């Protein structure tokens, strides 16, 4: 059991950091192990935001040299970025092990990601013009405060509260997953995929990388692979209903879209609220109520349903 949520403000920006924090806080009981956010701010022309980490939170409690290792790893990442021609405009150490860089780079994103992730402990959490992906251990309040998300203004976002069932409790197994190497694409998932290893092997043969053993990562990589073949988001999601096996409800975001898919058994919940200005969805209505306390009309999407909303 995990909690997933998403919101999109149509044609305007909103207080998505506070809204997502509030919704994920209401879903805490569905997964207390970790919390993650994928938020979309206002893009700046020709700039990218890279979120990455060079260690797990739990690494800080291990060994005498971890702090020095983190410094060294970050220095190597910087060196490799500059070596590939990345112009680092600003850098921020959000925690000791997690960083946010504002960069200019118009080269191959996959090459950049692979080169950085070749550094020990390094993992790209997201690359995008608008996407900022943050995930860490703890509940929504803890992660939101730690990464200062309360005042984040943006157009849309998704989030996840994780109850670890299939893989470890660590940041690499937390959601959302960035759809490597596609900029601005992120996925959150509630459920279990039963053809994970078959699917993973097939995608690895096609050159994709997996950073965790979490079955949910398969959805992000699967969608990235489909889009790489020129298939649009809605069709890729529709294909996933037959090609991914198991029980699942997932939510995906791109730079300008929010989508949801529910498997044909409809075994995992999803509640939706939609009006002319906003679409909000969550595993439980209580999450939606946390930002819409007045009476609203909500509904459950049906089995095998795929919906995509545009900004």
């Amino acid at each position, binding site marked *: 059991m995990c909690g997933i949520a998403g919101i999109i403000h149509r044609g305007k920006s909103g207080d998505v950091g506070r809204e997502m924090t509030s919704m994920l806080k209401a879903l805490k009981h569905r997964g207390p192990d970790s919390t993650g956010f994928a938020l979309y701010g206002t893009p700046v022309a020709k700039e990218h935001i890279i979120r990455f980490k060079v260690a797990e939170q739990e690494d800080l409690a291990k060994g005498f040299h971890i702090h020095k290792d983190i410094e060294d790893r970050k220095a190597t990442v910087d060196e490799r970025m500059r070596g590939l021609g990345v112009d680092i405009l600003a850098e921020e150490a959000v925690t000791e092990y997690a960083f946010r860089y504002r960069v200019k780079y118009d080269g191959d994103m996959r090459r950049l990601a692979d080169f950085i992730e070749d550094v020990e402990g390094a993992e790209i959490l997201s690359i995008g013009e608008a996407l900022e992906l943050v995930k860490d251990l703890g509940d929504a309040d803890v992660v939101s405060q730690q990464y200062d998300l309360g005042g984040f203004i943006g157009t849309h976002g998704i989030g996840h509260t994780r109850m670890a069932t299939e893989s470890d409790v660590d940041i690499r197994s937390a959601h959302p997953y960035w759809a490597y190497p596609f900029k601005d694409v992120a996925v959150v998932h509630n459920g279990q995929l039963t053809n994970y290893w078959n699917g993973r092997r097939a995608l690895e043969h096609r050159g994709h990388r997996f950073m965790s053993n979490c079955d949910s990562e398969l959805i992000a990589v699967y969608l990235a692979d489909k889009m790489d073949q020129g298939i649009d988001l809605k069709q890729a999601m529709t294909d996933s209903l037959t090609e991914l096996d198991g029980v699942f409800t997932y939510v995906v975001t791109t730079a300008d879209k929010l989508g949801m898919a529910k498997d*044909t*058994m*409809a075994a995992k*919940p999803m*509640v939706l609220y939609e009006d002319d200005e906003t679409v909000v969805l969550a595993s*439980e*209505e*209580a999450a*939606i*109520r946390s930002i819409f*306390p007045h*009476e609203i*009309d*909500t*509904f*459950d999407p*049906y*089995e*095998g349903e795929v919906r995509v909303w545009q900004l």
Partner: protein
Amino acid sequence: MATLDDKHKSYGMGMHTEQLKGRSLSTFFSVDEESSNFTYPDAFQVDIDKKTELDVKDMEATEINLKVRALMKEGYGHIVIKNPLAKHSLCVGILNRLKLEFEGSLGYFGCGLIDGPNITVKGRVGWSCAENMMSGTLVVEKNAGSTFGAAIRGGDLVCKGDVGSRTGIDQKGGTIIVGGNTGAFSGFMMQRGRMIVLGDAGINLGDSMYDGTIFIGGKIASCGVDAVPGEMTDIEAQWMERKLALYGMKAPNGVSKMQKIVAGKQLWNYDNLEPHEKKIVL
């Protein structure tokens, strides 16, 4: 709860027609086992005209449920719950005569395990509303989530909007009424009772149903294993008209146009053998 006269009337109308062929079914689900005027020995003596309001905005589910019990103990027979805010497990286990109104929506497992109250929900309900309901009425004015009325044994459970998947899964009695559409696997492993859906039904309707009757007003995406069309009787049509009228509802194309789905009774359980006996025969 039904009086003895009501029961005789329903028998006279031919409403108890289920053929419980399997030995397990005959043992556990005798149609004569239902009691009339049954009340629990520790039921609260409430006055239906004694009304109070309870704002639960800042209360946890346990606190709310204990407070409702305390109000019944004080004799309140009409309780209005304000600001339920889709909280889970509200007002479960009420085994009492009570008029209960929710001015808003419920979360998961709302009003489960009830026996006797008359409940209205002005908003929506989440998954598993009225699970294991024994008697009484529950009317939802908006939509409902999945597993609406799972394993209910009696009473009327009504949703005026759409409901999710697996509506009436394991239904053992009572009536479920849906004003809109219902999702996949509705009536899955249904054993007794009736389900009326005025809109469409999703895939695998009535899958593996043992008994009971499902009436669908709209399109059926597909019937499940051993769920087959049945022939609507005049008595059933009259009963549906009356039942729907009780809740201000009407079949869009008339009840006579509705499709009736029943169990084909071709599954293993209908040979009157227990599984271990079947192994010996085989």
